[in-house]
C-alpha cells in the first residue's frame, strides 16, 4: 500500500546546501530564460488538469455541430428579405462556445485564489504581473488555436450545408479568409477577458458570472430605441465580433477595422485593470 511507503521516509538527508557558497555568486538568469521558466510552469499546471480537456472538448465540438445546424435552419427557412450572411452560422455557434470557454480562463486564477495555491505561486514568482502575463499567454494561445480550428471546420461544415441550397461561399471568395480568421479570435478574446476577471474577482462563481455578464449582457442594448441600439450596441463585444467577421458588414455600425479594435479593447482593458490590482492586494 502506498500509504505505508509515505509514512516510512528514509532518514533525513537534506545535506545538499551545506557549505554552499551564497547564491548571489550565481549569475542571474536572463529575462528570456525567466520568461520561459514561468511559461513552462503555467503550461504544466494548465495541461495537468482534467477540466482543461473537457472544457476544450465542449468548446470545440459544440460549435462545429451547432454551426451546421444553424446553417441548415437558416437555409431551409422561408425566404424573406435578403439571404443571411453566409458566415453568420459560424460566428453564432462560436458565441455558444464562448460560454464554455469563459469558465476555464476564470479558473486559472480563481482556483488558485480559492485554494490558497496563489501564495505558493506568488512566493515562487514575486513579480505578479509576470504570472498574469504567463497565464494569459498560455490560455490565450490554446484558445486561439482552438478557436481557429473551430472557425475553419465550422466554415467548411456550414458551407457544405449552404451549398446544397446554393447560398454558400468558398474560402477563395474575397474577404472570406480574413473573416474566418477573425472568427477564430473570438474565443481567445473571451478567454483573455476571463483570465483578467479571475484575477480581479478571485472567486470562481463570481468570476464566471462576471465573464458571462460582460460578454453577453451588453447585447441587451438591441432593445434600446433606434438609433441608440446601434450607437451603443456597436461597442459591445459580441456586436463588434459580428462586424469583424461578417462578409457584408452592417452599415449602422463601425467599420470592421474599428470593430476589431473595439473587440480587442475589452480584454485589454480587463487585463490592464487586473495588472493594476494584482500587485496592490494582499493574498
Amino acid at each position, binding site marked *: 500500500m502506498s500509504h505505508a511507503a509515505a*509514512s516510512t521516509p528514509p532518514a533525513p538527508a537534506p545535506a*545538499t546546501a551545506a557549505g554552499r557558497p551564497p547564491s548571489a555568486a550565481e549569475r542571474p538568469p536572463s529575462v528570456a530564460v525567466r520568461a520561459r521558466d514561468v511559461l513552462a510552469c503555467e503550461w504544466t499546471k494548465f495541461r495537468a488538469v482534467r477540466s482543461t480537456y473537457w472544457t476544450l472538448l465542449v468548446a470545440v465540438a459544440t460549435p462545429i455541430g451547432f454551426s451546421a445546424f444553424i446553417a441548415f435552419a437558416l437555409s431551409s427557412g422561408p425566404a424573406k428579405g435578403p439571404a443571411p450572411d453566409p458566415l453568420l452560422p459560424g460566428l453564432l455557434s462560436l458565441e455558444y462556445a464562448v460560454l464554455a470557454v469563459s469558465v476555464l480562463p476564470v479558473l486559472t486564477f480563481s482556483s488558485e485564489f480559492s485554494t*490558497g495555491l496563489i*501564495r505558493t505561486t506568488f*512566493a515562487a514568482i514575486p513579480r505578479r504581473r509576470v504570472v498574469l502575463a504567463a497565464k494569459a499567454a498560455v490560455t490565450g494561445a490554446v484558445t486561439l488555436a482552438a478557436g481557429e480550428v473551430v472557425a475553419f471546420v465550422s466554415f467548411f461544415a456550414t458551407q457544405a450545408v449552404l451549398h446544397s441550397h446554393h447560398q454558400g461561399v468558398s474560402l477563395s471568395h474575397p474577404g472570406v479568409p480574413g473573416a474566418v480568421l477573425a472568427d477564430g479570435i473570438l474565443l481567445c478574446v473571451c478567454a483573455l477577458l476571463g483570465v483578467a476577471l479571475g484575477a480581479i474577482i478571485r472567486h470562481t462563481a463570481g468570476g464566471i458570472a462576471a465573464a458571462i455578464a460582460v460578454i453577453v449582457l451588453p447585447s441587451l442594448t438591441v432593445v434600446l430605441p433606434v438609433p441608440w441600439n446601434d450607437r451603443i450596441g456597436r461597442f459591445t463585444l459580441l456586436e463588434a465580433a459580428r462586424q469583424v467577421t461578417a462578409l457584408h458588414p452592417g452599415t449602422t455600425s463601425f467599420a470592421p477595422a474599428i470593430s476589431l479594435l473595439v473587440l480587442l479593447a475589452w480584454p485589454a482593458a480587463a487585463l490592464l485593470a487586473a495588472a493594476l490590482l494584482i500587485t496592490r492586494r494582499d493574498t
Partner: protein
Amino acid sequence: MIELDRVSKRFGPVTAVDDLSLVVRPGHVTGFLGPNGAGKTTTMKIILGLDAPTSGTALVGGRPYGTLVRPLRQVGALLDATALHGGRTAWVHLLSIAQSNGIGRRRVTEVLRLTGMEAVAHRRVSGYSLGMKQRLGIAAAMLGDPPVLMFDEPVNGLDTEGIGWIRVFFKELAAEGRTVLVSSHLMSEMAQTADHLVVIGRGQLLADLSTAELIARSAHHDVLVRSPRAAELAALIAARGATVTPQPDGALAVTGLAAADVGDEAAAHGIAVHALIPRQASLEQAYLDLTGESTDYRGADLASAADPASAADPASAADPASAAEGTPTR
C-alpha cells in the same frame, strides 16, 4: 537570515503585527510561538512579500523578498499544506513550482524521496491525508535547496512517526547552517525541536530567547507527596527546613527538599507514601505565563485544565495557577 525591522500590519481597526523587530539567525531551529491569531502567519506572509506591511521592512538574506530573482533558491516556505489543486498530482505540483524557478526534474525526484513521497507522487493530491500534504509542502519548500526555510504549523496532521521525523529533519537543516523558522501554537512541540524561541502575542514581541533560557526562567520545581499520614509527614519535612504547601486534594507540595530525601524521611518514620512525584514547571507553563495577557480567544477556566498539552504534563495539570490565570482579558 531573516530580519524584521519595526514591521506593523493593520487590517482596518485590527493590528495583526505590531512594531515587530526581530532577527532569525542561521544555524538554529527558531520556534515562532504564539496563541492562535497572534500574527505568526501574517508575519510569515510579510516576509514572503505576500502581504505588504503597513510600515517597517522585512529582509531575507539582506534583501526584500520581492527583489529576489528565483526566490525559491533563497527561501523555502510552507504556509498552508492544504493549498493545493486537488486534480493535480504531487509530481505535477512540484514540477510546476520547480519550473518557475529554473529547477530541474532531478531535484523534484530528490525532494519526493527526501520526504518519503515517491510512492504516491503520481496520485492526485485530493486523495492525500493532511500528513501527506504536509510532507508535500515540505518537499516544495526544499525544491530550491534554500538557505532560509519557514514552516507554518508543519506538525499539524502528522502522525507520531512523522512528528519524530520532522524534528530530526529540522535539526539537520539547522545543523547544515540554514535558517529555520518554525511556527507553532504548542510550546510542548517547540520545546523538543527549537533551540531558540520567538514568542509573540497580539502581534507584539513577548520574548526572544533560547529554549534553555526560557526553561531557566521558569525554573521552579517541587515534589508532590501523597500519604495517608500527610499531616505528620508535613511536620517532619518542615522540620528539615523545606517548605510544605498542602494541596486542595490532600497532597503536599514540597520545595527545598529532593524527592529522595522526602522518601527517606517518610521511611525513617514508618510513614507510608502513596505517591512521590518530582515536578518541574513545564515550558508550557512558562509559555502560558508569557502569553497569558495576550490570548485573544480563551475559554472559561475549565479550558486550561482540559488542554491536552497540559493534561499530559503532571506539573501544569496540577498547578492551580494556570486555572487562576484564566481570567478573560477583555
